């Protein structure tokens, strides 16, 4: 490390080791078209997925079908029940969190949707939550419904039998799409190209 020679006049001054500068920046975010349509549906206690022509049903929508790279103008209402495709039990309080720990955060594939949403599971002990479990949404009181996914307080078991064959992308191919089966790397052909329709399994759908 290079030696720094200070001028005589400041040689006895205590060096500054750090500077604490609080910073605040305010942002006003735009929901955009897709999110606005989705959240409007929420205020009517409906869960509206969105679809590009020829694409999958996305909940919550993000503005573009990420496989096609196209907008999602078609509204598709999905059910308020679905199947748990994965989950974890959170034991950690973090900055800004209002959740009481432990809580279950789960990926839920709503009937009619093609992508799982992330939400809470309650009204069941954490150690009884399972992949394949059928759950239904529980809304806030009508007076408290706002344009946010938090208007659904959580999901709880419906009591129906589990769906052990719930569609989880990638599970048909080894332990996932990125598996090397027989020491052979997968290629793009293991999935269906959404624009050309080429690839994927013989039935034309991906795993």
């Amino acid at each position, binding site marked *: 490390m290079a030696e720094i020679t200070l001028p005589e006049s400041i040689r006895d001054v205590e060096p500054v080791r750090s500077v604490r500068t609080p910073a605040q920046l305010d*942002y006003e975010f735009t929901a955009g078209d897709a999110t606005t349509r989705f959240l409007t549906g929420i205020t009517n206690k409906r869960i509206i997925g969105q679809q590009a022509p020829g694409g999958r049903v996305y909940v919550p929508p993000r*503005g573009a*079908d990420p496989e096609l790279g196209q907008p999602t103008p078609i509204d598709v209402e999905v059910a308020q029940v679905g199947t748990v495709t994965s989950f974890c039990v959170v034991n950690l309080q973090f900055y800004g969190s209002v959740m009481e720990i432990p809580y279950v955060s789960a990926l839920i594939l709503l009937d009619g949707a093609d992508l799982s949403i992330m939400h809470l599971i309650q009204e069941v002990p954490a150690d009884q939550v399972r992949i394949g479990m059928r759950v239904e949404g529980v809304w806030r009181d009508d007076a408290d419904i706002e344009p946010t996914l938090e208007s659904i307080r959580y999901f709880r078991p419906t009591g129906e039998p589990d769906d052990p064959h719930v569609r989880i992308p990638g599970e048909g191919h080894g332990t996932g799409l990125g598996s090397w089966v027989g020491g052979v790397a997968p290629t793009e052909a293991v999935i269906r190209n*959404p624009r050309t329709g080429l690839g994927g399994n013989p039935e034309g759908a991906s795993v």
Partner: protein
Amino acid sequence: MRDVAVISFAQTPMRRRVEELNEVEMLMPAVHGALRQVDMTIDDIGFTCSGSTDYLAGMAFSFVSTLDAVGPWPPIQESHVEMDGAWALYEAWVKLQIGEIDTALVYAYAKSSPGDLPMVLSRQLDPITMGPLWPDSVSLAALQARALLDSGKATEADFAEVAARSRRAALANPNAQLAWDCPAADVLAEDYLVAPLRRSDCPPITDGAAAIVLAAGDVARSKVERPAWIRGFDHRIEPIHLGLRDLTVSESTRIAAEAAGVADGPVDVAEIHAPFSHQELIVRDALVLGADTSINPSGGALAANAMMTAGLVRIGEVANRIASGEARRGVAHATSGPCLQQNLVCVLEGE
């Protein structure tokens, strides 16, 4: 050097607030437009590179969600820079030089409207010596303008002329945000915003997106009649601290221009990324442009200044004029950091 050309360029209408769309919705028309112009899809693209910044979006990892606009499925070769899209284009150009791919898609976008842009940009400074003062971008530019006036190299009337000429030229640009025909005298009659800069000397705050498709050699020739070939490409940086530089010259632009070979031929058109009017004069000098060069026919950054995007737009605007036959050789410039700290120069030419 491998022949690589700009073969298409698309931008969204540049506006103060794109209120009804989020970033990915705003970006899609630019990406789709650039691809459609040359009848290509993402499947025809060898490499994708983008420029954007988290602090503008107010979100960490903000570029991750906008990648959806491209439809990266099957998985693609892609990278991202926290810089203006002009530098993303540089990265794509470098990759094409290597020779393993022949096409690239470059895009950039910014929504400056969610935050307070001059305040956001004050976070782009040395956090110990500059940041705590919260100097806004206009004030910093004004320091440079004052230095330029004091040096005798320019007058306020010169600034006003740049401001007036830019907005007048923008009348011919359907995507420009600010466009009007007012004489320089009107600009001089304005009150100072931050002396010696007047409001008209300053750029607008803009939401917008742009995209460019690059192709090499015969692939470019097969796609368009007049590819805009990149003949020289360089970028340089200076220290951020204003006191360490001569603010009246752009040393990094001068070095980049020399390395890019700007002087190797006549420059018919120059698109200079100068958010403040006085900066156009500084960059013009550094590029050593002759009197015959048409400067900022698009209106430049004074007409539309989407952050992280305006530099890429400069390259696109030069490419457009070469593609139309209007110009044979042109220079595009992009800048980053306070008071022209970092500069990029791209020389483009028709066949």
